[in-house]
């Protein structure tokens, strides 16, 4: 069997931050802690389709592509501390992760034929625009693997550091909503008029989508938190569903569970609000980490897609610092497993947290985060 990261040395998380519909990481943590959802019913394709779906947008703008795009205006302001500083040079490379990049601009062009949308539509063009605004150099790696993309950035960044070819690595992720993506999930019928209730047993599942961006700075030696046991598994069973026996979830989580060494953990799950995946995921968690409390936050922030792993890492870090973990916002009993935590709880008594994400194609990713 190939060496996996779970057998390799851990890496330090020096700092992280995020931007969601609530605001920055602190505001997001506070919003979730209050039990208040940032999701609002919005027209799924802006003025072109008035059907209402739950979206957590950064502004009151309808889902309408602007020139420049919303993300291009928001990110350099929200993450001003990351501008320049040698990021994007060989010893301080940047890894950009997303599932959407600026693809909404292609919809904007297709709808309006305004060429002003075009410089942002292709993934590498959107990253170039971001790179220019953030004053980063050209040492940038771009990953795109749907909703586990951010985990790939963390894993590759870890490997660059462990190989000694980088001093620090900036992993940066952004996914802002557009008619392109909202229309797609609506067509798949998993985005509908209902609000998401992650890990809650009910008749019809539903998700909510949210704007999200986040970053993590990885270092070999600096930082109070450690990322370890990074695990990835791609079951390749079906484009949009998982092995019915849950073996894909179990295979990924087993790698992490094997590294616990008696530590007490809580679980930050993926929990979009779909029923089948929620049942499989929560059952796999209960099997691998019996009695560990499980939370999911997409009922509050929405699903931030390829950025969710990094956005929820930043919230997790905020929760660990404050020692108060937000519950599963939007959900109520009955839950899929008795271990689903609906209310906030104290971080005392836990040594680490398992952070997991899942994606189309039966892709699974997880890692262990703990204080050094």
């Amino acid at each position, binding site marked *: 069997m*190939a*060496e996996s990261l779970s057998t390799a040395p851990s890496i330090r998380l020096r700092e992280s931050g995020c931007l969601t519909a609530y605001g920055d990481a602190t505001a997001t943590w506070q919003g979730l802690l209050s039990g208040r959802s940032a999701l609002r019913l919005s027209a799924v394709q802006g003025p072109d389709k008035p059907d209402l779906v739950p979206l957590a947008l950064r502004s009151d703008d309808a889902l309408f592509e602007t020139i420049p795009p919303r993300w291009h205006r928001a990110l350099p302001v929200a993450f001003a501390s990351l501008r320049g500083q040698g990021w994007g040079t060989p010893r301080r*490379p940047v890894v950009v992760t997303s599932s959407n990049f600026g693809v909404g601009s292609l919809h904007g062009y297709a709808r309006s034929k305004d060429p002003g949308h075009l410089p942002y539509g292709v993934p590498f063009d959107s990253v170039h625009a971001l790179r220019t605004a953030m004053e980063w*150099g*050209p040492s940038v790696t771009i990953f795109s693997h749907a909703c586990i993309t951010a985990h790939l950035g963390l894993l590759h960044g870890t490997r660059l550091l462990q190989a000694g070819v980088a001093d620090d690595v900036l992993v940066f992720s952004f996914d802002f909503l557009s008619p392109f993506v909202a*229309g797609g999930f609506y067509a798949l*019928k998993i985005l509908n008029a209902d609000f998401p209730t992650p890990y809650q047993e009910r008749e019809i599942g539903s998700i909510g989508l949210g704007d999200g961006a986040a970053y993590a700075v990885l270092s070999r030696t600096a930082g109070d938190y450690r990322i370890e046991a990074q695990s*990835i*598994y791609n079951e390749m069973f079906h484009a949009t569903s998982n092995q019915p026996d849950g073996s894909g979830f179990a295979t990924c989580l087993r790698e992490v569970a094997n590294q616990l060494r008696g530590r007490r953990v809580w679980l930050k799950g993926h929990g979009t609000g779909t029923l089948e995946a929620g049942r499989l995921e929560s059952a796999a968690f209960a099997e691998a980490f019996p009695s560990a409390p499980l939370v999911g936050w997409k009922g509050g922030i929405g699903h931030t897609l390829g950025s969710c792993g990094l956005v929820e890492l930043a919230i997790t870090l905020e929760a660990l610092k404050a020692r108060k973990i937000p519950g599963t916002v939007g959900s109520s009993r009955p839950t899929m497993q008795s271990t689903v935590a609906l209310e906030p709880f104290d971080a005392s008594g836990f040594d680490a947290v398992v952070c997991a994400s899942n994606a189309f194609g039966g892709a699974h990713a997880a890692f262990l985060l703990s204080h050094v």
Partner: protein
Amino acid sequence: MFDRHITVSRTDDPGLELPAATRDRLKSRFPLGAARRMTQLGMIVGALIEELAPTGEDALIYASSYGETRAIEEYLASFPDASPTLFQTSIHPSAVQQGAISRKRSLREFFPLAGAPAELIAPALSVAMTNPAPRVLLVGGEERGTWLRELGLASERTYAFALALDRAPASENASTVLGSLTLSPSSAEEPGALSFSQWFDLLHQRKPWTGEIGSGWRLELRWST
């Protein structure tokens, strides 16, 4: 410095071939009926990957600047009543997933990259060469677009490559070594001189190459045959 042996090298260079012709040419390489639902990029990439005889423990590194161009074009044309099938097909890295799912072929590690044509090969190689798996599959390709190509937002040609990269083949398998790759850190920060399509041409013609490839990396590509 990172070294890997090239033990399998496959390329497909259909150039301006239309998707229907690609389907006729490659449909026998996939489970019955599967090619009917596959994109052109999915077919050429999927057929080459199969020639590498992948196992679940191989790491697959996949690079494409533009990804599923035609699915994106058709998906956009389906608005305002968006097509669910075209939406899921348009999502990177659908090209690899189409073939792998048709064969139910699981993978432990799968790293799909995007990047500008002039800048993609350096990060793709760095991901491949720093991966700890004994065998790494480095795969990439593009499909020729239509209206996005006319806007300069899609590839002019269709092509794909697939390499199996081994750390140290057993001595009894030395005859299977086709060449080698050496990737070294470099102080050069600017984009290098090797574009994604030029990299493909080197593999297709089995030509050696040495030089800066950008993002702080230097490459040496050698062929033994």
